[in-house]
């Protein structure tokens, strides 16, 4: 039903567990399978951000605008671990990260992951063209995560909202990302692939993927909220700038 391509994964697990009670020998218990927890954590520079910071904590962006955050929700897909020898293991198809309080969704746990040294972690920010199918995912539809058909359809990649400016005269911003509309009925793919450092996978490993939120406003384009605040979904230039700035927001954090 889910039209993701089946990952070609050849895992040669030769698990020879010999146990001879009579001789009472114990084969060295090499654990070949572990459980990984991937936590998506969010920072402004080095400062960790949670939903407790929503609406109240102010941040100064690269353009020296003061802003608050009230929503940060984004889609990642095809989260994959890679080995130096070219083998890869897809951990999941897609995941909607949401920082909001009670319903926060920031952690993926996958069991049955072969232990060992993974050279890199990759995922797609949003959906790639093959996966970004209009209306195809019931859970995302239920979350009203759709991207309007007039803008190319499929799904939002991110909804990042808040206010900027001086208290009392703030303006809203809605940094919403998805497929870019070049002109009427002409669309351009706007996802990007992320590759970050790998780690050594053990029996129980927890890995942090960090998003530095300030990077969305910094690199390479110094984001000016007075130019690009809202509406941005329909703004081709803004969509492309989001794509460029997004490339540097993720990095590998703490691995335990």
């Amino acid at each position, binding site marked *: 039903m889910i039209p993701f391509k089946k990952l070609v994964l050849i895992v040669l697990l030769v698990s020879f567990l010999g146990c001879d009670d009579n001789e009472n020998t114990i084969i060295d218990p090499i654990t070949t399978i572990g459980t990984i927890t991937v936590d998506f954590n969010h920072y402004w520079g080095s400062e960790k951000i949670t939903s407790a910071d929503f609406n109240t904590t102010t941040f100064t962006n690269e353009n020296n605008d003061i802003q608050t955050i*009230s929503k940060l929700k984004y889609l990642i897909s095809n989260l994959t671990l890679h080995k130096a020898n070219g083998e890869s293991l897809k951990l999941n198809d897609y995941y909607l990260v949401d920082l909001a309080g009670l319903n926060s969704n920031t952690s993926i746990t996958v069991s049955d992951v072969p232990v060992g040294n993974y050279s890199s972690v990759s995922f797609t920010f949003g959906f790639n063209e093959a996966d970004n199918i209009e209306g195809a995912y*019931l859970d995302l539809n239920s979350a*009203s995560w759709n991207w309007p058909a007039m803008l190319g359809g499929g799904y939002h990649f991110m909804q990042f909202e808040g206010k900027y400016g001086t208290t009392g005269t703030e303006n809203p911003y809605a940094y919403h990302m998805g497929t870019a509309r070049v002109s009427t009925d002409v669309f351009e793919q706007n996802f990007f692939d992320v590759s970050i450092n790998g780690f050594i996978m053990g029996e129980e490993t927890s890995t942090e993927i960090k998003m530095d939120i300030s990077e969305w406003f910094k690199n390479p384009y110094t984001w000016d909220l007075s130019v690009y605040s809202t509406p941005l979904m329909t703004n081709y230039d803004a969509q492309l700038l989001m794509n460029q700035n997004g490339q540097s927001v993720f990095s590998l954090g703490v691995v335990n």
Partner: protein
Amino acid sequence: MLKRIKIISLIFIFSSCSETGIETYTAYSPTPSPLNIPQIFASTILPPIQSIDNPQTEEGVQLGRKLFFDTILSVDDSQSCASCHSPENAFTDTDRFSEGIDGILGNRNSMPLFNMAWNYDNKFFWDGRSFGLEKQALEPVIDPIEMHNTWSNAVLSLQNDLEYPQLFFDAFGTLVIDSLLVTKAISQFERTLISSNSRFDKHLLGEITLTASELNGFNVFMDETKGDCFHCHGSQNNPLWTDNNFHNNGLDATFLDLGLGIITGDPNDNGKFKSPSLRNLKFTAPFMHDGRFASLDDVINHYSEGLINSLTIDPLMKSVNDGGVQLSATDKIDLKAFLLSLSDDEFINNPDFQAPN
């Protein structure tokens, strides 16, 4: 997906009635009655929330229907649930604030009732204070400005009734009525109130063609530079036409009613209320949590020119500093036509949803 509910039907009750000397020996075997999931929902959104400890049965639904329309639940036998939640109004009423049994008005507009099993977060009321329909149904009976009853008195009235004890037995296998069983039955009935046959639904199913005005209205609804309604009110891919979430949509600068903020205690939630579904607007005026807008035109004008800034206004009310999204006269007419295409006459006329005889 729908697992057939296995009902343990091997419960026999041996009840002896000493006054009459008649002994009854009745089998408890309710008939499972899973919700009918409309195609338009099955193909777009997740399955409805099933209540683990309150499976739908024919007997439970029929009992709930009888209770819903019965004034027996109010202290003076004058009001039923349907007094403020009438089928002809998609289970709301036409008042800004509904009048309770003592003639006292509430302070919020009665909510319409439909598609409630698809409220995935399971938070009910304008401020989301009740988790689960069964919990919600506990409140109006004992609210002093609504039915003004006590549960012990309501249960006593039901227990002393000629018909109800047997109906509770048929639905739940016990002759002993309590408030939880009452709310379970009412919730079962409410979950059957499914609305999925609007003109727009039929358009999506390819059964009818919408007018040019309705279609343009849908584009206004979906266009971020025009109505931008879809972020909170669903789309063709989420035909609930609500996100069932809580927002401040720019009604007031300060709040007489804190809404979600009362419940969470978080000042950042002040002035937030649940997004209502846009289905059945033809029947559900007046609008907003406090029923301040008498007509759909008033609502559209609010988003177009009437937005008021406040500390907790949703950033999606993006044009607040211009007063709103500034729709053209034509776009307003078309948007209204589209919105009305979400109304479902078959729903309000469904014989299963009317008062039982």
